[in-house]
């Protein structure tokens, strides 16, 4: 970029444009809101992570000797609620989606900036409401709130937690709505759908799910709260209600929700793989189409959570075959990423380490998912640690790896500073090793039959659980290191150039960190996306 390169310290950018708490808490700049999300989800990740550490501590010994059963149930529920609703779902869309979508499509901001700030407040209020419930004794129903336990028998703060999740559900809806309208109406001239970066395709598909799925869990939690407050019997078998109907309504959202978690991760990986192979992505159309296909198919498969719960055999057959269909687009994506590396010019920086880790772990996690879609096998492994291992391979091995990869890749653009390459590679390896040591043994202990949510278990499972706890402590250390050096880099990091990786994409053609209005004047896009090979540096005509 040939603009006069004033040293970043004097240049006005979105970080030093204004100071003071009010300028942050009342900002409508998508980049600052992204930072607010970054702080928020790191906070809730810490709480969820602490709960995870306590769970692993308890499971060191077969006897339930660290916590009472009641306390243990509240801890694993806190782990589930905090991680799912306040870290995974708002995570990548809130931080990377908010920061990058306007930059990638050459817009000044998202379509509804004030709505974007409202989304953050709803997320924060929802999170703090749930946190209030946790601090005052929490809930012991599990993050799934199965009735009739959650409506009739549980004595925790079910209603307050449900209201917290309901509020943060609105944040997810409004974020999805914002992204969809932004991608439809605010693309720079020349930025056709086929020139859209794949990150935006992934966020588009995520937006579809957020809009079409979230309301259903909103009404489900509202009915659970109404049942507890007014003693209605919608899901209470004693008054004719059907608990399986709750499961239908709950999983109608909660399975697409796991695609809200993985699609943004896949979107990040598409960017990382092509940037660090310095090569156009292989199969652009197929990856973009796969994202949208996943978004649509994800709404038809929820019944595979209910194969043994009294759902009819024929419904089980239909859900099983559809669950296999939704796996195909994910397979296509993995093959296309691998093909992108072929004959590339691959450089081993940290974001690529996370991307390669993602591809490996997501492939393994995805294939174990196929095992769960297989009717015959799911009967045995349902509600055991096999399931816990599967979804942690996808969520931790997949989404968190991609989130960290994306955070490292765009950190120079977000903060204007470079992260320390040595320490980031060390933490990447520590996380990779810690992760596998934590969750691979859980596959084995799961197939051996150890049920989920047990705080005491038979002795023969102890060896595998000790390995898992050892892995968890390594993983915990692995996560703390990036927190330290990211904060360190904001102060002492070297200043980053506008395009430190030599990557294509409009976000790299504006200064790091970008000014508040992103581009001096709206860029016009001419070439095809990821055009590494023709012009050495695609000049965006100002």
């Amino acid at each position: 970029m040939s603009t006069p390169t004033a040293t970043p310290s004097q240049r006005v950018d979105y970080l030093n444009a204004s100071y003071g708490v009010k300028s942050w808490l009342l900002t409508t700049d998508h980049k600052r809101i992204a930072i607010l999300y970054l702080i928020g989800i790191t906070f809730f990740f810490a709480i969820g992570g602490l709960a995870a550490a306590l769970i692993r501590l308890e499971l060191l010994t077969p006897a339930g000797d660290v916590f009472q059963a009641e306390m243990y149930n509240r801890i694993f529920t806190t782990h589930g609620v905090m991680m799912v609703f306040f870290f995974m779902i708002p995570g990548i869309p809130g931080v990377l989606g908010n920061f990058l979508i306007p930059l990638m499509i050459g817009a000044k901001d998202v379509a509804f900036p004030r709505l974007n700030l409202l989304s953050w407040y709803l997320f924060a209020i929802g999170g703090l409401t749930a946190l209030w419930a946790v601090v005052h004794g929490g809930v012991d129903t599990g993050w799934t709130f199965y009735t009739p336990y959650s409506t009739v028998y549980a004595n925790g703060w079910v209603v307050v937690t449900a209201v917290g999740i309901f509020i943060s559900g609105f944040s997810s809806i409004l974020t999805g709505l914002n992204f969809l309208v932004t991608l439809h109406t605010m693309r720079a001239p020349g930025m056709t759908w086929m020139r859209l970066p794949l990150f935006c395709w992934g966020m588009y598909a995520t937006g579809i799910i957020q809009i079409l799925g979230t309301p259903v869990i909103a009404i489900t939690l509202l009915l659970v709260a109404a049942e507890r407050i007014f003693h209605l019997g919608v899901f209470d078998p004693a008054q004719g209600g059907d608990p399986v109907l709750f499961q239908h309504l709950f999983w109608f959202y909660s399975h697409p929700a796991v695609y809200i978690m993985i699609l943004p991760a896949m979107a990040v990986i598409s960017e990382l793989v092509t940037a660090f192979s310095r090569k156009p992505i292989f199969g652009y159309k197929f990856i973009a189409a796969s994202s949208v296909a996943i978004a649509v198919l994800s709404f038809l498969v929820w019944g595979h959570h209910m194969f043994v719960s009294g759902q009819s055999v024929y419904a089980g057959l239909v859900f099983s075959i559809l669950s296999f269909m939704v796996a195909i687009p994910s397979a296509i994506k993995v093959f296309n990423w691998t093909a992108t590396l072929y004959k590339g010019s691959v450089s081993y920086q940290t974001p690529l380490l996370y991307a390669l880790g993602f591809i490996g772990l997501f492939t393994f996690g995805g294939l174990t998912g196929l095992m769960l879609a297989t009717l015959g096998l799911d009967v045995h492994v349902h509600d055991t640690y096999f399931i816990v291992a599967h979804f942690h391979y996808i969520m931790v091995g997949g989404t968190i790896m991609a989130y960290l990869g994306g955070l490292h890749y765009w950190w120079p653009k977000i903060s204007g500073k470079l992260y320390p390459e040595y320490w980031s590679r060390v933490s990447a390896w520590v996380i990779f090793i810690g992760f596998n040591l934590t969750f691979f043994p859980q596959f084995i202990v799961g197939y051996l039959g150890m049920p989920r949510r047990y705080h005491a278990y038979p002795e023969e499972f102890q060896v595998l659980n000790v390995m898992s706890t050892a892995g968890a402590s390594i993983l915990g250390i692995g996560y703390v290191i990036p927190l330290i050096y990211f904060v360190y880099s904001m102060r002492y990091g070297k200043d980053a150039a506008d395009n430190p990786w030599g990557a294509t994409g409009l976000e790299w053609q504006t200064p790091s960190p970008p000014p508040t209005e992103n581009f001096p004047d709206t860029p016009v896009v001419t070439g095809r996306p990821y055009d590494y090979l023709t012009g050495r540096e695609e000049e965006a005509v100002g």
Partner: protein
Amino acid sequence: MPQLFPPEASSFAGHVDALYIFLILVTAFFSLLIGTLVVVFAIKFHRKSPDEVATEVHESGLLEIVWTVIPFGLVLVMFAWGASVYFRLSRPPANALDIYVTAKQWMWKLQHTDGHREMNELHVPVGVPVRLTMASEDVIHSFYVPAFRFKRDVVPGRFSTAWFEATKPGKYHLFCAEFCGTRHSNMIGWVYVMKPADYQAWLAGGVPGETLAAAGAKRFIEHQCNTCHGDQPGARGPSLNGLFGKQVQLANGRTVLADESYIRESIVNPQAVLTAGYQPIMPTFQGLISEEGLLQLVAYIKSLASAPPAGAAASAAPAPTPERKTIRP
């Protein structure tokens, strides 16, 4: 080698393990394929100089089709194999030994038809298919025996039915697999699979209470069911003799099989399964009869299955329960 598989102790376990091994092979193959390709490409095409550029690789539609069709074929195989194994589990054979299970917050109560009652323990003969008819008195529980590769949620408000056939004598874990509250992890027990001789000894040893059907008969009188269902001619309710296992013509035109769920539905929500030709006057007993009571009534009505059909012999007294045929070795 540490134990990787739970003991294979049921007719079903072998099939599940074979399916599991096939899936492990597929998973291992593709994980290693992708893993090695990714590492090899990363090393082989390592960036030599800072501004080295990749070489152009044209996209190939054929390749995309290949790696769509092959996974598609593989998943169809997985689906078909899984479905066949699943079907085997969901169709209990006709001559199965009936066990009635009542799940209650944090214990399993098991009742044999001959009156034996057990808490968190189940003694079954080897080689005999056992059908479990399960009901929950409070929340959702899940009857899970890892050694049999068998699990079934017990949903309150209805009967859950499942079956297994133990093939290896021994003592196997019984777990509750669906989170059911504070002492969910203590709701565990043992399943003892015994050789026929030991099983007979065990049956003889224990002092059985009244048989399930007899308890059901008592409850049948207690709730004055016999005022309408006493099968005297012109009774207001349909006769229950010889009802179990037959097709029933309903008032709304459907014909259903009179199984446990039908009997439970007609006690709890009689209007929904009103028999053709009768007035909808039966009140619902929802909440008035405990789950155990419902199981006993079902056992009693099943024992009337072999009684002569209605009107043939007006016997007000409950028919004596026929002796179970001896268990084949």
